[in-house]
């Protein structure tokens, strides 16, 4: 794996290593100054081995998650890369017909003339980097093994020049040997492994191919490994067959024509040619362009040209096939790793909270000893150092165990992925780069280091008297002093904030007066940069300046001695630090960051900056209230509720306020989880007493349990900080699991819904090679009357997939400006004409034009995601398509720009107002189609549901425009292949029927429902893997409860002894601890589920995930209950042992405990 989040791994490695070196240097420097402090920290480890183990387990989770993601990514990367090298073999580039040129030729004419191969061979004969050119002709044919009677409707037939391929090293057989290609003569055929499997073929079998209506018989010479040169041109349909070039050209009726010319580049090893790829590609394309230019310059008529089209553009291009395949493998593994890390980030956050929690509890335990240590002269920094040493010891242990466990878990993940992708011919071999291990360990150590430093710093702020006397810290601080920085910041913020908000609000809306726009562009950004610059200058400049002055003063013998004598030495070293009392002024940082985030979102329309900024601003206000000791229950509750409101409010509300349509990607999943859990936890923790009221009633009703209930409630309500942390930890993991599971369940339901199947049971494709225009008639002619009688309704789609067919659409970036002029009015009248397709406002895209017959239009129940104004129902849209004169079209959702969570198609373009439910409306949009010299307008009146467009085998992978049959004939002189959609009679199995049709007619036939179920199983397997990975975080939450329970038993030993002395039974001690932890766990679980379902519901309602094919959001109650039960049981189990231990502790011993 070479990239993560778009950043090269080598860069990440460098940053991590530098950061680690800095950390190590800091630690070594601190340890060398006072090793005793380090020893003090380290000696805490063996004091409680059980607790140490629990802490290490809790801490190792983030390492485990990062290393598991990296190890899986490396394995995928290495395996897919190797697979790419194996499949492409010696072919590095392909010379192909350039289909993007808008020339409108039929697919079988999109070929490369033999002459081009001859020219290339001559021109590059002395090229130092190009080794060979290999001529290839290919097409998809159906095949039947006469010997075994097995049939395969789609086999890629490849014609090769035996001598050329021999020179490249031949075609490998299944035992890594080479097939003797010299023996591949007339009537001989080589099958690749996939084709041989499908046809149950072995060497010597007789095979019959159906090509362009004719039958051709061959003897199988050998079975080859699946490679490009043995016909594996598509990973989803790898079956291929090889015959000599001349024979292939004859039976495919392509004399002197090639499908492509393979180019082999010199270079050492597998990756050697890749290094030359870019350069060779340039040279090849330059050659092709020069030839085209030469033809134009020579004044050749278009019909006489080989290299240039009518417009003088080059017809052929060099495609860096191998480099692209290897890049795709890298991208695929990088996307997987990124997604694993995004899912794992919830667990990493939970892990960071756990580290905080652990240190807060350790500090609580050692409060008195720390107070005494401070009283006898230990500096705050000494406490930090001591905790740092302890934290790092845990950290190192956790990093080592976590990395090992992560790599172990990656084996399981790779096994699952292997079973899923094995169907596509991928085999994964475990692999992990040392670089990934270093990064995983390094990131984990750094994360823990930073967390430990911050938490130690917080701990070191303890009040000495309060710590020694073991009394409350509240009120020990008195009024916080007003700092110079505080005054400065207040003076800046008071005029700045409203100004920024005003400018941000009114500065960029189109149509607003110029002064407001000027204010936005000049003032807002001016203020941002000036303010940030001023702050940086103030802090850095002043620090450097004063430190320099201080250092100079201290260096002067007499002055230095005087300064030290007065105890000002420390002030001279870090004066700014002291002067600014920065610890009190975090509110300013948050308020300013929040304002900047919101204001910058006005330009970028980024939901991340907008909602993130607003949330920070709200928390900043809370800190400001705290700064002036005004933060009570109301302030905290209001903050929490406001944050929740911001994240759960409908998008339309935000749009109404700001006039912006804020957009976000997958990162919003993470940010929304963190923000909502933070808000909800703050609100809940400061109102725990209200939440526990029902528990108090239990105590009243069952008086016997009253003391246990009272103490079980009292501890978590008193220790808000640690309760909040634990609740947040459990809630955030439950949130991620429930959101993911709910989306998964909803789409699983949608994928196998009747709507997704479109009302049909099976699908049969006939190509030009076996053209069947009427499935019913074809079956009757093949004497399969019973089979024909079993098919109830048959619809037909005729798909014109001509390369070069252009669909002119509007350039989406300029849509805003064109919107008012291009959209037709409600009566369908265009407001102005279609713009010039060659203008910069238009862009060309490839669509598959699909003709529909009456039967299809009448019988399909395919749901529409959006309809044009004036069409009230889906049926009205399909009905309107009947009229050939209206030139209406329906487009699939995968042909338009999809939403954030839906797969993007390369050929997607954007239309306005797409997304949401079927009730949505789209304005009529006119597209212009061009074919050769002709043009034709189509008015789009509907968008086929996204789920159907992705999953239904009738449309999947084909960005399609559905029109009347007659239209296809009028524009394109017929279709490339015909797709028959049929329903089967009651009680008939679609799969059996599909197999019978396939065997009878030799055309590929599939059961739609079985295909959908198969897809669902595949996607479920992957989603379950992600789900399981996210679920690892629950271990953190449960470990946290275990840590709390263990700590509670240690901390309260004396109290438990006292309770036992005054009459608490052992059972009651156990009950109290179990109730306490259950209470915390249940709040976390409930909060996570409630937040997840609220957010998911809102997102589905707003159509953020696109359509659900009418199924609506599905709440997987069973799965959620299992997660909740697992979390709760885990919490109980983790609490049971310490509770048991507590209840069994000898009372007298417990009372003596200090």
């Amino acid at each position, binding site marked *: 794996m070479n990239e993560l989040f778009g950043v090269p791994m080598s860069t990440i490695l460098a940053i991590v290593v530098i950061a680690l070196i800095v950390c190590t240097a800091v630690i070594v420097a601190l340890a060398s100054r006072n090793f005793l402090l380090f020893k003090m920290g380290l000696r805490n480890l063996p004091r409680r081995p059980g607790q140490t183990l629990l802490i290490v387990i809790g801490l190792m989770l983030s390492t485990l998650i990062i290393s598991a993601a990296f190890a899986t990514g490396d394995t995928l990367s290495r395996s897919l890369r190797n697979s790419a090298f194996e499949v492409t073999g010696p072919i590095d580039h392909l010379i192909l017909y350039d289909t993007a040129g808008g020339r409108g030729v039929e697919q079988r004419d999109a070929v490369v003339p033999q002459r081009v191969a001859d020219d290339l061979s001559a021109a590059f004969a002395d090229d130092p980097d190009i080794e060979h050119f290999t001529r290839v002709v290919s097409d998809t044919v159906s095949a039947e093994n006469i010997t075994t009677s097995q049939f395969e409707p789609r086999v890629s037939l490849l014609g090769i020049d035996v001598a050329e391929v021999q020179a490249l090293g031949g075609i490998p057989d299944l035992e890594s040997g080479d097939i003797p290609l010299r023996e591949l003569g007339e009537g001989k055929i080589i099958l690749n492994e996939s084709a041989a499997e499908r046809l149950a073929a072995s060497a010597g079998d007789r095979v019959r191919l159906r090509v362009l209506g004719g039958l051709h018989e061959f003897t199988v010479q050998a079975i080859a490994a699946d490679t490009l040169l043995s016909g594996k041109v598509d990973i989803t349909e790898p079956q291929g067959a090889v015959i000599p070039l001349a024979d292939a050209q004859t039976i495919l009726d392509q004399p002197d024509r090639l499908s492509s010319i393979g180019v082999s580049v010199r270079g050492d090893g597998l990756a050697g040619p890749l290094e030359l790829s870019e350069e060779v590609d340039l040279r090849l394309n330059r050659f092709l362009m020069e030839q085209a230019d030469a033809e134009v310059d020579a004044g050749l008529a278009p019909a006489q040209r080989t290299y240039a089209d009518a417009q003088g553009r080059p017809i052929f291009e060099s495609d860096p096939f191998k480099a692209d395949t290897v890049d795709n493998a890298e991208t695929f593994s990088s996307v997987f790793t990124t997604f694993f890390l995004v899912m794992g980030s919830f667990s990493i956050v939970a892990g960071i909270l756990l580290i905080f929690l652990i240190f807060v509890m350790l500090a609580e335990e050692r409060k008195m000893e720390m107070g005494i240590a401070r009283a006898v002269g230990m500096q705050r920094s000494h406490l930090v150092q001591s905790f740092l040493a302890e934290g790092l010891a845990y950290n190192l242990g956790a990093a080592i165990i976590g990395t090992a466990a992560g790599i172990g878990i990656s084996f399981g993940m790779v096994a699952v992925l292997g079973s899923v992708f094995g169907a596509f011919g991928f085999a994964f071999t475990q692999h992990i780069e040392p670089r990934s291990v270093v990064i995983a360990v390094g990131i984990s150590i750094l994360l823990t280091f930073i967390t430990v430093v911050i938490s130690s710093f917080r701990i070191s702020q303890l009040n000495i008297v309060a710590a020694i006397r*073991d*009394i*409350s810290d509240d009120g020990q601080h008195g009024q916080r002093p007003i700092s110079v920085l505080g005054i400065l910041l207040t003076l800046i913020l008071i005029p700045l904030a409203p100004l920024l908000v005003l400018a941000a609000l009114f500065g960029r809306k189109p149509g607003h007066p110029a002064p407001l726009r000027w204010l936005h562009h000049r003032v807002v950004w001016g203020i941002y940069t000036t303010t940030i610059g001023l702050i940086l200058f103030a802090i850095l400049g002043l620090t450097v300046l004063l430190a320099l002055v201080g250092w100079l003063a201290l260096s002067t013998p007499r002055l230095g001695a005087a300064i030290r004598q007065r105890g000002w030495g420390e002030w001279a070293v870090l004066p700014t630090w002291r002067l600014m009392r920065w610890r009190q002024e975090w509110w300013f940082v948050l308020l300013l960051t929040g304002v900047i985030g919101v204001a910058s979102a006005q330009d970028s329309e980024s939901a991340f900056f907008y909602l993130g900024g607003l949330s920070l601003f709200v928390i900043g206000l809370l800190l400001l209230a705290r700064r002036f000791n005004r933060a009570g229950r109301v302030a905290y509750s209001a903050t929490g509720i406001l944050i929740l409101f911001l994240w759960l409010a409908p998008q339309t509300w935000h749009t109404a306020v700001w006039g912006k349509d804020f957009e976000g990607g997958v990162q919003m999943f993470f940010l929304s989880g963190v923000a909502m859990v933070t808000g909800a936890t703050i609100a809940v923790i400061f109102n725990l007493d209200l939440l526990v009221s029902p528990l108090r009633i239990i*105590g*009243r009703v069952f*008086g*016997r349990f*009253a*003391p246990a209930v*009272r*103490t079980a409630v*009292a*501890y978590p*309500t*008193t*220790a808000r900080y640690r309760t909040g942390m634990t609740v947040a930890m459990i809630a955030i993991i439950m949130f991620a699991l429930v959101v993911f599971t709910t989306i998964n369940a909803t789409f699983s339901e949608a994928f196998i819904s009747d709507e997704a199947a479109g009302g049909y049971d099976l699908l049969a494709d006939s190509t030009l090679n076996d053209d069947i225009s009427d499935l019913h008639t074809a079956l009757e002619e093949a004497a399969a009357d019973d089979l024909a009688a079993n098919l109830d309704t048959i619809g037909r789609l005729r798909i014109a997939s001509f390369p070069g067919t252009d669909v002119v659409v509007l350039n989406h970036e300029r849509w805003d400006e064109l919107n008012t002029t291009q959209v037709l009015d409600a009566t369908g009248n265009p407001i102005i004409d279609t713009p010039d397709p060659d203008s910069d406002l238009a862009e060309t895209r490839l669509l598959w034009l699909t003709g529909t017959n009456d039967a299809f239009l009448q019988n399909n129940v395919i749901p529409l995601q959006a309809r044009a104004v004036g069409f009230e129902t889906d049926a009205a849209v399909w009905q309107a398509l009947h009229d050939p004169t209206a030139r209406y079209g329906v487009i699939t959702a995968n042909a338009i720009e999809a939403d954030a969570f839906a797969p993007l198609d390369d050929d997607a373009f954007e239309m306005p107002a797409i997304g949401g439910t079927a009730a949505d409306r789209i304005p009529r949009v006119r597209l212009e189609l061009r074919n050769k010299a002709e043009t034709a307008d189509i008015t789009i009146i509907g968008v086929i549901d996204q789920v159907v467009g992705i999953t239904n085998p009738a449309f999947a992978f084909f960005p399609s425009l559905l029109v009347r049959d007659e239209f296809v004939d009028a524009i394109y002189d017929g279709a490339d292949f015909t797709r028959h959609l049929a329903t089967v009679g009651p009680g008939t199995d679609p799969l059996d029927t599909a197999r019978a049709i396939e065997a009878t007619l030799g055309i590929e036939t599939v059961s739609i429902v079985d295909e959908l179920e198969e897809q669902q199983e595949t996607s479920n397997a992957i989603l379950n893997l992600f789900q399981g990975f996210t679920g690892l975080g629950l271990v953190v939450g449960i470990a946290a409860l275990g840590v709390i329970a263990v700590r509670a038993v240690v901390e309260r030993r*004396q*109290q438990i*002894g*006292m*309770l*036992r*002395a*005054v*009459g*608490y*039974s*052992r059972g*009651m001690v156990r009950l109290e601890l179990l109730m306490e932890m259950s209470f915390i766990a249940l709040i976390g679980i409930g909060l996570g589920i409630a937040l997840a379902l609220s957010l998911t519901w809102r997102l589905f309602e707003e159509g953020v995930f696109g359509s659900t094919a009418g199924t609506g959001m599905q709440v997987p109650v069973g799965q959620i209950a299992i997660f909740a039960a697992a979390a709760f049981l885990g919490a109980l189990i983790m609490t049971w042992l310490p509770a048991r231990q507590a209840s069994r502790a*000898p*009372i*007298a*011993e417990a*009372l*003596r405990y200090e």
Partner: protein
Amino acid sequence: MTIMPATSTAIVEAHDVHKTYRSAGAAVHALRGVSLTVPRGEMVSVMGPSGCGKTTLLNTLAGLDEIDSGSIRIEGQEIQALSDHAKTDYRARRMGFVFQFYNLLPVLTAVENVEMPLLLSGISIREARRRALAALDQVHLGEWAKHRPAQLSGGQRQRVTIARALVNNPAIVWADEPTGDLDSANANEIMTLIQELNAQNAQTFIIVTHDEQIGARCHRTIHMRDGQIENETSHRPFIPPADEPLA
């Protein structure tokens, strides 16, 4: 199993009690054949140098710790014959405890701490609250009922402990260094309070202390050394209460 109060005037009877702790391979003989009798209503102090076995004696007599041999009878009932559950139940109803370091639950308010033994004895929440407030009034802390221990001074905390120890109207109150963590003024105030309560309620107090002045305010002081009772000193005559034993 529930112990019914005996009618015998001796509320605590210990005979030849032995207790040995084993720590890091070494055996520490904390009690070596201790025998003593305490009549109902008497205030007895136990004194002696550190490590002589005072706290161990108190813990074993109260049933908080097990003994190796000998016998202890509280209100006529062999304490070591009781199950843990029965002992716990008995402590909740018939005993009160005052510790040097107060041992209050920091997460509960003063009144909630005081009402804990009542709730454990099955008293209704309303009644428990009424009696707990009354007990706090008795120790002059009525106005501090809603405060948590961390918000109280050492003397106040110890008075909350005493209120907790007495709220259940126990037959015996065990006090381990009740004034050990207090200044002399507070210590004096606490002892005055204990003496008053002893006089008013005829409750038996067994107080472990280092302080001779505290010891002198009891009816009798038992001096211990090396796990044995060395001698006894009577400070003032003990007149057994005329009333029936407390129920």
